[in-house]
C-alpha cells in the first residue's frame, strides 16, 4: 500500500525552502504511527472484505465454505429479494435527509449568523443536538413516539389523531418519523459547517453592495451563496456519505422494520453478518457499497480539487 512505501523508501531531497538540520527520516517517523494504524485496521480489513466477497464463508455452516467466484454478486443482483429494496431505500434516505438538512441547516446558519440579542444562548441551544449520539437520539424519539405516553397521546387528548397510534410500527408513518428524528440531530451539524464558512465572508462586500443599492436577497444570491458554494458542495457530499453509512440510528430506532421497510444497505449488511453469520455474502454486499461510495469519492475529489493547493 501507499503508506508502507512512504515509510520504507528513501526520502526525497529536502525542498528548497525546508533547509534545516533535521534528519531526513523525521517526516516518515512522524507519519508512521498513523500510517501503521490505518494499514492494519483499515487497509487490511478492506482487502479481506474483497477476498471474502469471492468466498462462501459462514462460520455456522463450515461444510459449504470455499471459493465461490462471483456467485455472491450474482445472487445479490438477481435472486436476492431484499437487495434492491435496501438499495432504493438507502438512496431515498440519503437524498431526503441531505436535501432537508441543506435547506434547514443553511437557513439556521444564516439566522444565527445575524447579530441579535441572545445570540450566544440561541446558538448553543439550537446546536445542542449535534453532540447527541445516534443511540440517544433513538432513545429520545422512542419516548416521543411511543403509543401510550408519547406525543400522540397528548395530541389525541387535544382531539388530533387517535389513541394508541405508534408511528414507528406503521409502514405509512415510519419513514417520515425516522427522517424527523435524524433531522433533529443532522440539521445542527450541517448548520455548524456552514456557519464556520459564513464567518469568513468579508463585511466590506456587503457594505459595498449596500452602497450600490443591492437588496438583501440580491446580496444573498450574489455574495453569500457564491462564497458558500465550496462549503455547501463539501458538506452535502460528506453528509451524504455519512448518512449512507450511518447505522446507529435506524438500527436502534426501527431495527430496519416494520417489515424491512427502513432497512438501508449497510443495515442489511450488518444483519447479514451479525445475525445470519453469512460473512461471504455480507462481504460481497460491502464491496458493492464500496463501489458506490468510490463513485462518490471521485465526484468529491473532482469537485473539491483536494490536495492541489499545498506547496
Amino acid at each position: 500500500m501507499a503508506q508502507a512505501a512512504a515509510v520504507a523508501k528513501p526520502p526525497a531531497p529536502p525542498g528548497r525552502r525546508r533547509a534545516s538540520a533535521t534528519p531526513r527520516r523525521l517526516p516518515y517517523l512522524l507519519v508512521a504511527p498513523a500510517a501503521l494504524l490505518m494499514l492494519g485496521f483499515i487497509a487490511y480489513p478492506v482487502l479481506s472484505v474483497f477476498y471474502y466477497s469471492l468466498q462462501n464463508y459462514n462460520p455456522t455452516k463450515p461444510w459449504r465454505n470455499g471459493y465461490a467466484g462471483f456467485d455472491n454478486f450474482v445472487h445479490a443482483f438477481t435472486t436476492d429479494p431484499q437487495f434492491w429494496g435496501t438499495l432504493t431505500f438507502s438512496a431515498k434516505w440519503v437524498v431526503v435527509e441531505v436535501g432537508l438538512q441543506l435547506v434547514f441547516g443553511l437557513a439556521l446558519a444564516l439566522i444565527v449568523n445575524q447579530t441579535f440579542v441572545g445570540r450566544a444562548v440561541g446558538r448553543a441551544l439550537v446546536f445542542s443536538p449535534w453532540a447527541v449520539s445516534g443511540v440517544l437520539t433513538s432513545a429520545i424519539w422512542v419516548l416521543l413516539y411511543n403509543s401510550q405516553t408519547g406525543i400522540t397521546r397528548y395530541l389525541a387528548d387535544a382531539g388530533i389523531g387517535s389513541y394508541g397510534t405508534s408511528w414507528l410500527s406503521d409502514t405509512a408513518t415510519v419513514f417520515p418519523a425516522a427522517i424527523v428524528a435524524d433531522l433533529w440531530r443532522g440539521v445542527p451539524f450541517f448548520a455548524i459547517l456552514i456557519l464556520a464558512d459564513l464567518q469568513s465572508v468579508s463585511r466590506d462586500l456587503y457594505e459595498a453592495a449596500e452602497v450600490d443599492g443591492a437588496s438583501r436577497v440580491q446580496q444573498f444570491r450574489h455574495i453569500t451563496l457564491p462564497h458558500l458554494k465550496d462549503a455547501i458542495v463539501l458538506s452535502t457530499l460528506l453528509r451524504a456519505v455519512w448518512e449512507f453509512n450511518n447505522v446507529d440510528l435506524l438500527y436502534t430506532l426501527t431495527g430496519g422494520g416494520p417489515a424491512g421497510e427502513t432497512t438501508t444497505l449497510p443495515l442489511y449488511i450488518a444483519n447479514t453478518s451479525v445475525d445470519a453469520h453469512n460473512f461471504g455474502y455480507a462481504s460481497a454486499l460491502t464491496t458493492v457499497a464500496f463501489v458506490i461510495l468510490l463513485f462518490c469519492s471521485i465526484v468529491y475529489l473532482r469537485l473539491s480539487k483536494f490536495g492541489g493547493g499545498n506547496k
Partner: protein
Amino acid sequence: MITEEAPEIAPAPAPAAPEPPRPAARRRRAWDEVPRWQIYLPLSVYLLFTLIPFYWILLFALRPAGSTSLVPWPMTSVHFGKVWNERSFGVYFQNSVLVGVATLVMTTVVALAGGYALARFDFRLKRGFMLALLCTQFVPGALLLVPLFEIFANLRMINSLASVVIAETVFQLPLSMILISGFIRNVPYSLEEAAWVDGCNRFTGFRIVVLPLLRPGLIAVGSFAFVHAWNHFLFALMFLSDQGKQTIPVGLNTLMSADSVDLGALAAGGIVAAVPVVIVFAFIQKWLITGFSAGAVKG
C-alpha cells in the same frame, strides 16, 4: 414538526415600513438591517423543535412511572437510582469515560505528529498519503465489522476496551490529521525558524512556539474524538460481549430492545449518556467554530 413552520410564518406581521435612507447610519446598519421578527420567529419555531425532545426525556426521567403529567412534579430520582445500580449504568459510565479519554489522547497525539509532517515537510508519496486519508472518509466502520472482529480475535483483544479504543482512534485519525495539518499550516513557518535561530531544536521550537497557537484547533479535534468515542455504538456492541465491559450506548440499546421498554429507566439512562457530552459541548462550542473555520479543508 417541520411543516408547522409554514402556517406560523404566514400571518406574521409585515416588516416595518422602510425607513427613509439615512446615509450616516447606513454603514453601521449594513449588517444589522434584518427585521427582528425575521430572526426571532423562525428561531423560536426551530428552538421548539430542538427543545421539546429534550424536555420530553427530562420529563420521563423525573416523573414517577405511570404518570401522565406534562410537568415533572412530584419529582423522583427513582429512575436514576435504578438505571445506575440495577442496570449497571455506573459501570458503563466508567467504561465510556475510559474509552473516550483514551481515544482523545491517542487520536490527538498521533494526529499531531502526522499533521506536523504533512504541514511542514515535502516527502515522497505525501500526496498519495493525503489522498489515502481522504478516501478513508468513504470507508465506513460499520462495513468493516467482520474483518475487524477477526483481527481483534486474533490479537486476543475481544472483550477488552483497548479494541474499541483502537477502532475509534483509527477512524478518527484521518480527519483529525487533515484538520491539524491545516491548523499548523496557518502558523507562519518563520516563527519556528526564529526559534531555531534562538537555539531551540525542532521539538522545543514546536512546543514553545507552535503548540500554544494550536490550542483552539486541538481542543476542537480532541473533543470531537471524545464525543465520537463516547457516542459510538457498533464497535462496542460487537467487540465487548462481557456485560461488565460494555459502554453507555450499548446499555441504552439493551434498555430499548427489551420486550416492554421501561420508559423511565430509558429516559434516565439517556440523561446519564448526555450529561458529559453536554458539558464538553458547552465548553468547546466557541472553539469549535473558530477551529473548524481555521482548519477547514477547502479546494
